[in-house]
């Protein structure tokens, strides 16, 4: 009971070559949560969500997108675990460095805009944008940090990102700071060379729509640990992996964002559609489903919600009226016993 319609076995072309170790598999196997005073391995349904997020984030296709809807007995941690799986699955995918596009983007920022720069070695700078120039073909971006003006060559300008947290203030004296050595759970999941890029470079791998406060609490407050046999537990938060943009410390790279189910926040700052959109709850899906027409969807519906049947009706309508046959295959786990799920493809818009 509850198995999805088809178990698809072919990986899509965008999936990176498998590198060892597989951070998603390690995350599933070794992630523990706190029960009472001890660490306990994740239950099967939680591991399922990690796999589902990883599968949907890596199985992308230009023509079609996958909808995976699942009915659960209670909301809680499904969306954040799926998003964590999605982010980890794409952790090793290099971030396209379109230097010229990024230079143009920085040029569009107002003078004095707060920016942070992470050097290739991970040193962190914060300052105010001064000027961008390409004299004699040697382009640079200049920003002032305290008394010092730093010139960053165009080739490294992708390390410069605007700071969107309005509470950040640049002190008059600022010393460059080495990147924090503590990356939390990520320290136990990614190799060092991948880790630096993961922590300090940004790209939205997935968005989660739902009860903002509940989602952010799950990401930032609930304790987790990577517990490998024979090793000390390495504790942290899901945020270490998720890197929700608004909860990142300034200077850190982000990999996901959270939006409210009931509207209110626009989708500013999404330069391109994310590979995966996760709708946590019926309201999130019904209110915001139209906003990600080219992303894969994971729709998590709590059976006890008042609008559950409305959301199911909409999923069924999409299945009956709009689904398409597709050759894009997404590797998805079988839903745990007791859960109903469905998966199908729609045209990517």
């Amino acid at each position, binding site marked *: 009971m509850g198995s999805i319609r088809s178990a698809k076995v072919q990986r899509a072309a965008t999936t990176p070559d498998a590198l060892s170790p597989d951070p998603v598999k390690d995350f599933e196997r070794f992630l523990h949560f706190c029960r009472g005073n001890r660490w306990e391995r994740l239950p099967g349904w939680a591991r399922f969500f990690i796999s589902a997020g990883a599968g949907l984030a890596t199985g992308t296709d230009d023509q079609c997108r996958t909808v995976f809807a699942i009915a659960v007995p209670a909301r809680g941690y499904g969306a954040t675990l799926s998003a964590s799986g999605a982010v980890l699955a794409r952790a090793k995918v290099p971030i396209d460095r379109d230097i010229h596009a990024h230079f143009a983007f920085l040029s569009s920022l107002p003078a004095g805009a707060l920016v942070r720069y992470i050097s290739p070695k991970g040193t962190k700078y914060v300052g105010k944008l001064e000027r961008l120039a390409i004299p004699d073909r040697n382009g640079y971006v200049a920003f002032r940090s305290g008394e010092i003006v730093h010139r960053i060559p165009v080739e490294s300008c992708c390390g410069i990102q605007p700071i969107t947290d309005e509470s950040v203030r640049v002190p008059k004296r600022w010393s460059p700071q080495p990147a924090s050595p503590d990356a939390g759970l990520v320290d136990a999941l990614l190799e060092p060379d991948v880790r630096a890029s993961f922590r300090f470079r940004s790209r939205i791998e997935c968005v989660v729509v739902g009860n903002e*406060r509940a989602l952010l609490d799950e990401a930032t407050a609930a304790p987790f640990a990577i517990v490998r046999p024979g090793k000390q537990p390495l504790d942290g938060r899901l945020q270490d992996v998720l890197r929700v943009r608004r909860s990142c410390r300034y200077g850190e790279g982000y990999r996901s964002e959270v939006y409210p189910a009931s509207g209110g926040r626009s989708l500013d700052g999404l330069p391109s559609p994310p590979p995966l959109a996760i709708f946590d709850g019926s309201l999130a899906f019904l209110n915001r489903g139209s906003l990600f027409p080219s992303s894969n969807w994971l729709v998590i519906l709590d*059976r006890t919600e008042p609008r559950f049947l409305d959301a199911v009706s909409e999923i069924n309508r999409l299945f009956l009226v709009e689904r398409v046959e597709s050759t894009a295959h997404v590797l998805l786990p079988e839903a745990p016993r007791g859960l109903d799920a*469905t998966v199908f493809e729609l045209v990517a818009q």
Partner: protein
Amino acid sequence: MSEVSLSGIDALYSLSDEPAIHYCHVEHALFRAFCRSSRALIRQLGDEANDPNWIDLTRSLKRYRFVMSAAPLSFNDPGAEPRFSPVLMRSLVARIGLVYPGAVSVARETVELYMRLRQCEDNPCLDCMETLFGQQSAPTALLVRDSRVIQLASSALKTRDALSTYEVVGLEGVRGKTTYDKLIVMGPASWYPDYVFRAPRSGLIYIVGYRWNRIRWQPKPTFVGCDGGFERLDEAKSDLESDTEFDESWPGIDWSLIARHGIAAISDDQDERDHDMVSAYLFVLHGGYAVFLDASDGSHCLAIDPRDHAEAQVKQIDTQHIEPGMFVLMRTEGGGNYIVPVADKILGERANEHRAAQEHWKLRLRNHVVRAGLLETCLELLDLGSLRANETNLRNWMSGRTIGTERENDFVAIMRLVGLADEAERYWKITRVIKAAHLRAGKAIRRRLIEQVANVDVADLERKGTFTFELPDAEGGRLTAFRVESRAPTTMSVPVSRLDRVFARED
């Protein structure tokens, strides 16, 4: 609100993995005869069952049948007396014999059976529960379909020592994160939403129902694309209910009936403007209550959303965004509006004078509209400098429920229209003072409520469905939070005086 841990969520996932469901059949010959007879009457009447001559009788009999089938009450429970009394029933049957000769004998039989039941102390459902379950040390809940009978069921359970520790809950009591060792469901499974069994809050479920009702749960796939294993699973068990007579659905909410009774029930002797009609949402509330809330653009009310984070639970919310599961805060004494009395206290000695001034220009405006009509008045206002005069806004500006216009130019246009141009500045200042007082009142009430809600166990609030907050008089007085159970699918036109006033359902 306590945030739920992963271990708490895990417990709910574990329970959803095929809970054990047991079925307990109850028998009572007299009640079976009554059910059969009342159904035969409705079948015989056909469409005429909704005829004004019959509707009160058929509705009352149907309600009694469903209540007795879905709650462990004795047949003579005084709380289960329908609106249409037995005396009226007999009188009706005696009168209409000539007009409906075919149906009168069935009607007479049904009424006589009903009268016998109303003299009968038997409570077979309670007897069944006492025999089968007895005293329970672990948390045990009894789920009833209709929140209006929760109190009655609780009282019935307390008459048996062995059952006195059971908790009686409505549908909302099995939506949250609270779990039970045992859950007893009263009545057929089909009367309950699927989540009771697919997202259960207990690993042991007992469905207790009369033998002539089909009480078994019939699982169905949720999504169209899902496997069809459900039918195969249940085929072997379908023959066990071959002796059932009835397979009827839980009756839907009769919104028009609730609305009719609601408008009639609330009387407001002094209100001269009772003819002012507004568009309203009708909400059914926990415990057998209902309320009309203003559906105009920008209307809002104070609500508690238990799903939100602690700091954000108490909020002013647009009435169109009120959803089942939220709690709306209402005054149940002294009229619906809790802001005005608090705002008047803030205004102090100026309150009477300012309110009188406000009413003065509104009355002039209303009188003008009566003479010239809405459309003409709008055009005149536009000519006099208003930018937002339209029929909807004009109705709002005239209404006693609003303070004034948003923009000064609209207000000045009104002053010019009603001959108060020389005093426009004074009246505008008064309008702003009243608005500021209302804002301060709203904030004060909300602040006090947040403090009190922080001390409430929200899981407890969700189970009980209502809660009364005692605020200082200067900050709202007594406010009761009612859980919203459902909303009418369409808005209704009701007198403005009916808004925000909780009334008992009569359906």
